[in-house]
């Protein structure tokens, strides 16, 4: 983010700090809107392969394969290409994959899943994101603390994670021209400030989001978090 060179020098550090925090807030808000959108309208598949006695169960490799099959049946295109095997100890190849966005609360479930390959076990991590935590067969998992969780929503009343598994171009974000992101700074004297005591800073953006094909985004629900 560009540094601000406005106002009295003593205020610039504060303003630049505020701008950085607003930038973080803006991006997280954009993510939250997209998350809420997918949570609201993606079709739903419960994990049923686990053994915790709940519905949905905790995620297992059979559930990953089920959602993979659904997306394949629906002609969903892969997002990432195969990570080929290399002659490196402790690594395993990763197949062509769909992307799964989920809460960081799912990490213990994934790490306990048979067949899950942690990112550091990939043969090559040059084509990965920092939020990627691993893959299983044909799904790669990307975790965020902002990931979707529905409280008390399982059959037995436990929290469930909404794990959005998407094929290529399954959903999109639309930004209105001129409204992508704005940082709004007002010097002292605005907004009921006749004695010119206070600066204000804020940000705004316009954003629309939608699923482009209802067959290409699946909400794979898991308990055990």
């Amino acid at each position, binding site marked *: 983010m560009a540094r601000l060179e406005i106002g009295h020098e003593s205020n610039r550090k504060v303003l630049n700090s505020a701008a950085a925090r607003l930038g973080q807030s803006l991006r997280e808000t954009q993510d*939250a*809107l997209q998350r*809420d*959108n997918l*949570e*609201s*309208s*993606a*079709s*739903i*598949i*419960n994990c*049923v*392969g686990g053994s915790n006695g709940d*519905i*949905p*169960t905790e995620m297992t490799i059979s559930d990953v394969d089920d959602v993979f099959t659904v997306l394949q*049946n*629906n*002609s969903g295109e892969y997002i990432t290409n195969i990570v080929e095997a290399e002659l490196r100890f402790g690594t395993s190849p990763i197949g062509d994959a769909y992307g799964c966005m989920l809460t960081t609360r799912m990490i213990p479930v994934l790490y306990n899943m048979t067949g899950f390959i942690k990112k550091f076990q990939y043969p090559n991590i040059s084509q990965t994101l920092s939020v990627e935590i691993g893959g299983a067969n044909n799904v790669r998992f990307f975790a965020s603390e902002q990931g979707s969780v*529905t*409280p*008390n*929503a*399982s*059959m*037995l*009343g436990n929290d*469930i994670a909404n794990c959005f598994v998407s094929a290529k171009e399954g959903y999109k974000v639309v930004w209105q021209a001129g409204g992508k992101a704005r940082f709004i700074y007002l010097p002292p004297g605005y907004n*009921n400030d*006749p*004695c010119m005591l206070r600066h204000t800073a804020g940000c705004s953006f316009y954003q*629309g*989001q*939608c*699923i*482009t*094909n*209802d*067959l290409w985004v699946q909400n794979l*629900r898991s308990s055990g978090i």
Partner: protein
Amino acid sequence: MSLPYSFIGQWTYTNPATIVSQQIPMTAKPDWVFVKDLTNWGAQSTAANPIYSEWFSSMAAGSYLALGQPSSTTTGVTTYASQGTSGGFTFIDQTNPPTFSKVAITAINGTTFVVSTGTTTGINVGDWVRLINVTGALEISGPNLYQVTAVSASTSITLGYGASAASAGLVVANGTTGYYQKVYPGLFLPNTLPVAYITQATQAVVYFFRQNPYVAGQLVDFQIPSAYGMTQLSNLTGKSGSGPFSSNPAGAARVLSVTNSATVSSITIDVDTTGFTAFQYPTSAAFASGSSPAVCMPAGSGVVPLSGSATIPASPPGTVLSDAFDNRSQYIMNIGTSAVGVASANMVVMAFKADFVNGITNA
């Protein structure tokens, strides 16, 4: 100089003969809200409690301060003050709604969808609840949200939309012990909804457990797991092939009409389901052994036809986004029945925001 409150807004409402809580949409979280009775203010022959209620942001959610007036004014007694910790003001950010405690139930009738419970505090007609771990009726436990259509204080709540689906053909078992939990659903609309029942008809009728967000002309799709029977209705978007040899259905279903009454939530779609497998909920045991929900999801043309009809889509369509693009989440001030005023009274609400709220600690 003093820094005044900024004025958020003013609203009015008239209480019905039996008071219910009011949901007041707001553009910001207020620091001060008051409600005043314009009908009974100063009416010496009318006992009215409260005629004035207020809440400050330093107070707990659900609490209130109130003034009531006695039926006759005697010397020195014109109003009396009261306060409470429930039934008052609750601020709700619908993008990050509050969670509520689960409440024990003793029985659910699978036909009438009357849920027997000793606690109905805070539940009003129109609220959404989730059923949890209902013994004997696990198939209706879990993520599904049900809308309350009647409340019998401290006795039961009725989930009338489920009862209407049962009248149409939905069969679920009677349940015994379990829990219900009040929930605020997300408000990205139109959204995915669990299906309660689907008829076998030339134009199938799809029933839901709560009011639905769909509009005539919209496209919808379904995901019906095998445990629910009518799998032929699944993933319609991928079923193409219009022409003399096309299968039924071809492509996503179009909504022909919508019903959202006090107890019926349904849509009629342009799919002939007479030859399909009957729709049926799995048994409690079958659901518990592993099943996904049967769902209806938006599949295109969310708010059209703008200029078409129920059966002929607008051309060109006005909006062709596929799903929940309409974010109706907002700030709400819920005014509970202890603060909302008396029956049939005209009420005014005013809300303000302070420039700052400081707690002063004396050394």
